[in-house]
């Protein structure tokens, strides 16, 4: 009797919670009235709040329809989606960037090209031509609907520059090194704060390296390596080392990251940073008021006659999964709802996003982001963004290799060799 009671107790203690837990598993995944959207909207961000608001509006406009959101961080999302796809349990729609591993999704059949829906759903004309180009692969397949992107200018704190005796924003490398000398002489840690130890430092290194590289050649190098064998790449890297040794970058840049770089700028310690639009969103009003946006100064004889910046529309796209095909009507309703002009404008106005659609640029709450979108091509030239070309397996290794470039004493050839080594794994 006691033995039975013990067994019953043990079994119920174990099985009951398991069964209770099973009761609510995957609610609505296969429900034809539920659309599962996997996104990487950081909980609590302005972007997520706008999305939540629109999702509720969509559900109100479509009685009986439910949007079920799955949220993961960028890298986690990719891993989770890929394994879920293998088990045929992936979300219907995925909102993620086009870079690294996702570049191979269309080719592998992990997601469905959206070419036919661009016209069928009347969306083609909504997108900026550059955005559609970036989302189209070599075989003409459009990987997903372009959603938002980024601008990546250089932010200069003009008040701080003036305090160090620099009267105007530098536009050439000579002006840049002269300004850096003044900042150092005035007791500053450097002219440009940069996260030499992460993606922010890698992008700036690649931007400076392109000074003498024609765009097609830069794209080829990013895709296939060969930095040490390319005299123009080496010349660009030599320029980088000259700037580094002239004290342009903050002391100890090789150990800094994007967060410390942003803090340096937000607190008024850094005269300049290479600032992606998501950084510009958070610049405090006091600093924003004295901020002038520009590009990275270029050398005489380089391929760009104006300071350079990056811009792109690959930060987020709306991808359709094979399971999503089974709920195509719901997907169509949801996607076309998001791309309504008023709705995509809400992401610009209330979350400071750089959208891949036409006519969504003004954001009074985020004036620096708006200004960065409007930077005229008479002042800025756009360098080749490496992320679309660097192979998925190489990206993280390349970031680690790039951090070596910020170590004082490293020569151009040594940096190029380290970059090439990243491609060999």
């Amino acid at each position, binding site marked *: 009797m006691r033995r039975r009671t013990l067994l019953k107790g043990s079994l119920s203690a174990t099985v009951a919670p398991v069964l209770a837990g099973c009761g609510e598993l995957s609610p609505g995944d296969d429900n034809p009235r539920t659309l599962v959207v996997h996104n990487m909207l950081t909980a609590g961000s302005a972007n997520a709040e706008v999305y939540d608001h629109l999702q509720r509006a969509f559900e109100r406009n479509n009685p009986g329809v439910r949007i079920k959101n799955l949220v993961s961080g960028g890298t986690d999302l990719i*891993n989770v989606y890929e394994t879920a796809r293998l088990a045929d349990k992936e979300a219907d729609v995925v909102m993620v960037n086009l870079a690294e591993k996702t570049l191979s999704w269309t080719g592998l059949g992990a997601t469905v090209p959206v070419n036919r829906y661009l016209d069928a759903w009347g969306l083609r004309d909504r997108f900026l031509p550059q955005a559609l180009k970036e989302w189209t692969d070599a075989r003409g397949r459009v990987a997903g609907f372009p959603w938002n992107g980024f601008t990546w200018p250089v932010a200069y704190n003009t008040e701080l520059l003036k305090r160090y005796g620099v009267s105007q924003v530098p536009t050439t490398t000579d002006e840049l090194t002269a300004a850096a000398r003044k900042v150092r002489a005035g007791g500053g840690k450097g002219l440009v704060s940069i996260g030499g130890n992460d993606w922010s430092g890698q992008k700036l290194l690649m931007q400076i390296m392109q000074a003498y590289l024609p765009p097609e050649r830069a794209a080829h190098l990013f895709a296939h390596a060969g930095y040490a064998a390319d005299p123009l790449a080496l010349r660009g890297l030599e320029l980088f080392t000259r700037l580094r040794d002239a004290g342009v970058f903050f002391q100890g840049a090789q150990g800094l990251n994007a967060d410390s770089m942003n803090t340096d700028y937000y607190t008024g310690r850094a005269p300049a940073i290479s600032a992606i639009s998501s950084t510009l969103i958070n610049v405090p009003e006091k600093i924003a008021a004295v901020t002038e946006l520009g590009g990275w100064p270029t050398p005489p004889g380089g391929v760009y006659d104006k300071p350079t910046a990056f811009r792109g529309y690959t930060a987020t796209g709306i991808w359709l999964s094979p399971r999503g095909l089974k709920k195509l009507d719901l997907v169509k309703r949801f996607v076309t709802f998001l791309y309504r002009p008023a709705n995509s404008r809400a992401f610009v106005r209330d979350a400071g996003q750089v959208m891949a659609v036409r006519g969504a640029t003004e954001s009074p709450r985020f004036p620096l982001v708006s200004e960065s979108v409007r930077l005229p091509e008479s002042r800025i030239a756009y360098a080749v963004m490496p992320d679309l070309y660097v192979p998925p397996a190489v990206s993280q290794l390349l970031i680690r290799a790039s951090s070596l470039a910020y170590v004082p004493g490293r020569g151009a050839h040594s940096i190029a060799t380290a970059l090439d080594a990243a491609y060999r794994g």
Partner: protein
Amino acid sequence: MVWLYALVLVLPLYYLLISSFKTTTSIFDSPLAPPAHPEWHYFGDALRYARLDLALVNSVLVTVVALVLTLLLAVPASFALARGQGRAARVLERVFSLGFLVPTFAALVPTFLMAAFTGLFHTRTFVMLLLPAGAMPLSVVVLTQFMRTIPAELEESARVDGAGTLTVLRRIFIPLCMPGIATILLLNFLNFWNEYLYSLVIIGPDTSQRTIQVALPTLQSNQATEYGVLMAGTALTLVPVYIVYVLLQRRMEEALISGAIKM
């Protein structure tokens, strides 16, 4: 020296706690300074944004069920191995030890395939069953050694009094092995609670199912993380760990003392 060591242990906790009340800028600007203007709302924000309340319940469910299963399997297995005199028992004990040789990452793909094959992919149930399997080698090896220290005379006298095998296990071996049981409970609790990779891949990101370790990173973005909220969320995940540690530490001490008296 002891104070220095204590300081080394306390410093990260201090940093975590004070950062839970500071803005991102002040965290990076003055990392070790106490908050000048505490942001009390970060804890509420973390709970609300990432639904840490639901995630906490899921983590408790997964961890408790996995711990119960581990004990239900490891205690009888260790009992049998400790009492076994033959060659088979020695071989079986070594087979359990082989489990230490399987690296976590190496088991991921086969585990995923098993989850997909059994139809338990994207369920907590699979992880509840998986975690005890991973914990068995350590649990069985530790408990077997504890049970071997129990004198055979105790079992013999119980048998003379008419006790069956289950009674011997329940009335003699389990009470005397409480230090070992508390030890494996504590170690496995920490492992189960902090488990991330399998919870992420197998359970997935569904808010209604995900564990707290999977929910927490959703507070972090690639480019603009509000570190105060992230730190507050991290501090919240540590509270159950601290409670269990304190509870089991006491039990372990009590069991050690009572075991010594009985012995």
